[in-house]
């Protein structure tokens, strides 16, 4: 307890020091290209402290998201628009994120940005922030009570599923005329990305009269698991036209299996995330397409909104960062 109190006092002291430092800096540097960042706004801004609750530092997508936030925050800080920021990693552990949120509320940050570990498990954090009067911006995936949060910046995973479904329909003869047998590799069942991407496929390729979705199994987001399932499917079904994987890791696993079976020419494979080797594979003409969830857009967007909230500017409650279909035609600009 004592330690904690000392710790808090220290942070407060530190904050004051940084605050003064930042104020001086903001007076010195003529930073800020935006027109409204002069005079009064800058003075207010220099007291802003942004806290980031990261979901993970090892997940490929979250790494990109964290990096984008970091760049945006560092820029704000160097311009003196914010006093400081801190990032903590929950390592995909709900309990850890709950504790970290408590710590951040106790520290009294101006605004929190959270990439939630779990839709239900992290919902209490939103309530706590509301109680403590600290605005919270949710980024990437939603909590079950996302409407109670101050703002949400993210992409709609249903859209990702629809982009996949439409791409497959186009490849198999065009919307309304698509023909063929489709297989679906699902993520961890119950995960919000899995539910929504599945819904997106249900809205599109499932509705095609001529196309049949033969089976859907969960590859648990894992490459080796998806590869094993696909190998079994390749044995079982002599006629497969397309495979839709709810993430690239599984898409790449399926691709390996299909290439090994010598059936890549007959089977269209599409997946979501646009991770590095998926993009390279698209460039090499193997994977047919990947759907980019814009980590950069989400990361930068979440920091922008958080800053707008903290400095009292107007902000969007819901910011949708659109998904982008990446095929051989446009892959070069994303590599």
């Amino acid at each position, binding site marked *: 307890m004592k330690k904690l109190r000392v710790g808090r006092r220290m942070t407060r002291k530190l904050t004051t020091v940084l605050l003064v430092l930042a104020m001086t800096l903001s007076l010195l540097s003529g930073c800020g290209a935006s027109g409204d960042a002069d005079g009064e706004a800058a003075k207010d801004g220099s007291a802003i402290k942004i806290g980031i609750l990261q979901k993970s*530092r*090892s*997940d*490929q997508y979250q*790494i990109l998201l964290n990096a984008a936030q970091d760049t945006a925050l560092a820029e704000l800080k160097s311009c003196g628009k914010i006093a400081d920021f801190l990032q903590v990693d929950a390592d995909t552990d709900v309990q850890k994120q709950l504790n970290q949120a408590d710590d951040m509320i106790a520290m009294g940050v101006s605004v929190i940005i959270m990439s939630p570990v779990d839709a239900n498990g992290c919902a209490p954090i939103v309530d706590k922030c509301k109680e403590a009067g600290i605005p919270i911006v949710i980024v990437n995936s939603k909590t079950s009570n996302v409407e109670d949060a101050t703002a949400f910046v993210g992409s709609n995973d249903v859209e990702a599923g629809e982009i996949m479904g439409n791409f497959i329909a186009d490849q198999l003869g065009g919307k309304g005329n698509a023909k063929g047998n489709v297989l679906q590799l*699902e993520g961890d*069942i119950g995960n919000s990305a899995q539910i929504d991407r599945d819904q997106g496929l249900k809205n599109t390729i499932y509705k095609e009269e001529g196309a049949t979705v033969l*089976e859907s*199994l*969960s590859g648990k987001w*894992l*490459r*080796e698991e998806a*590869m*094993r*399932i696909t*190998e*079994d*499917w390749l*044995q*079982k079904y002599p006629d497969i036209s397309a495979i839709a994987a709810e993430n690239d890791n599984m898409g*790449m*696993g399926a691709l*390996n299996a299909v290439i*090994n079976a010598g059936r890549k020419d007959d089977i269209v494979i599409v997946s979501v995330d646009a*991770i*590095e*080797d998926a993009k*390279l594979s698209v460039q090499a003409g193997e994977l047919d397409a990947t759907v980019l969830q814009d980590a950069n857009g989400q990361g930068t967007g979440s920091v922008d909104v958080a800053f707008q909230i903290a400095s009292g500017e107007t902000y969007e409650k819901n910011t949708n960062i659109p998904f982008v279909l990446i095929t051989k035609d446009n892959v070069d600009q994303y590599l």
Partner: protein
Amino acid sequence: MSMQAKQTEQSFDLALFTRKYGILMILVFMIVFLLIASPTFRTLQNTINVLNQISINGIIAIGMTFIIISGGIDLSIGSMIAVASVVTGAVLAANPGNVVFAVVLAAVACGLIGLFNGYIISKFDMFPFVVTLGTQLIFRGAAYVISDGKSYVLTSNAFKEIGQGKLLGAIPYSIIVLISIAFIGFVLLSRTKYGQYVYAIGGNLHTAVASGVNVFKIKLLTYMMMGIFTGIAGVILTSRVNAGQPSIGVGYELDAIAAVVIGGSSLNGGIGTIPGTVIGILMIGVINNGMNLMGVSSFYQQIVKGFIILGAVILDIMISRRKSK
């Protein structure tokens, strides 16, 4: 443990025999059922497919058989695989031509990790369960540190051959590796002094110590061998998925332990055989493949697998009890 030690040599062997046969019968029954129920299962191509899929778990399970017979357990397998994967990935990312070096380095790294496990366990006389529960965190963390959390994209075609290539275009190399390792394991366990010592320290540690067995050395060797086998399995898995990933291999120890236990090894130590484990490995492979071919949904696959494992072991215990009475 003392009960088993009191048993005579003869009834000990008989129990082992029936244990092995009970499970073999269940495996045969499952295969016959699938042969009838699934047209795909009958094909030669699917047989090769199943053998290919079990090779990674199989290689690990062979090492795990030694560990379990010696009275131990190793929960750090999944993390070791991750280390092997990122070590291979890091070497190949720096220079795609260094295939041999990458493979050897991965096996050596995992061998050293196994040695570390064995050292802690035998030096401080700690429960292997607790030690490897701790070290699996260390190794997984190390894998993340080495790779900085990222996944290595592998482009070397020569490396791809290891896990995806086929001898004469028909037999996957991974199957050949599994058969070789199973054979080496069989010889080591049943035809050498080292093998006898492994049974001895698992069967009755005090007797083994009293009769002059160097327990420290045997345990060290056993955990190191586990590490090397896991390293090889990790390399094959990395090549199979064509990526060096720090998050790979989670839970792989459990399938290996399941195969060993289904194969008639006792978690109390002192009992078990390589042929038994091979049957266990085949059984898990056939369950996984069979359910996919039968179109069992993801929800039910785990439930079915759990019940089959439980059922197999219960039936096996019932058979061996009745026969040894």
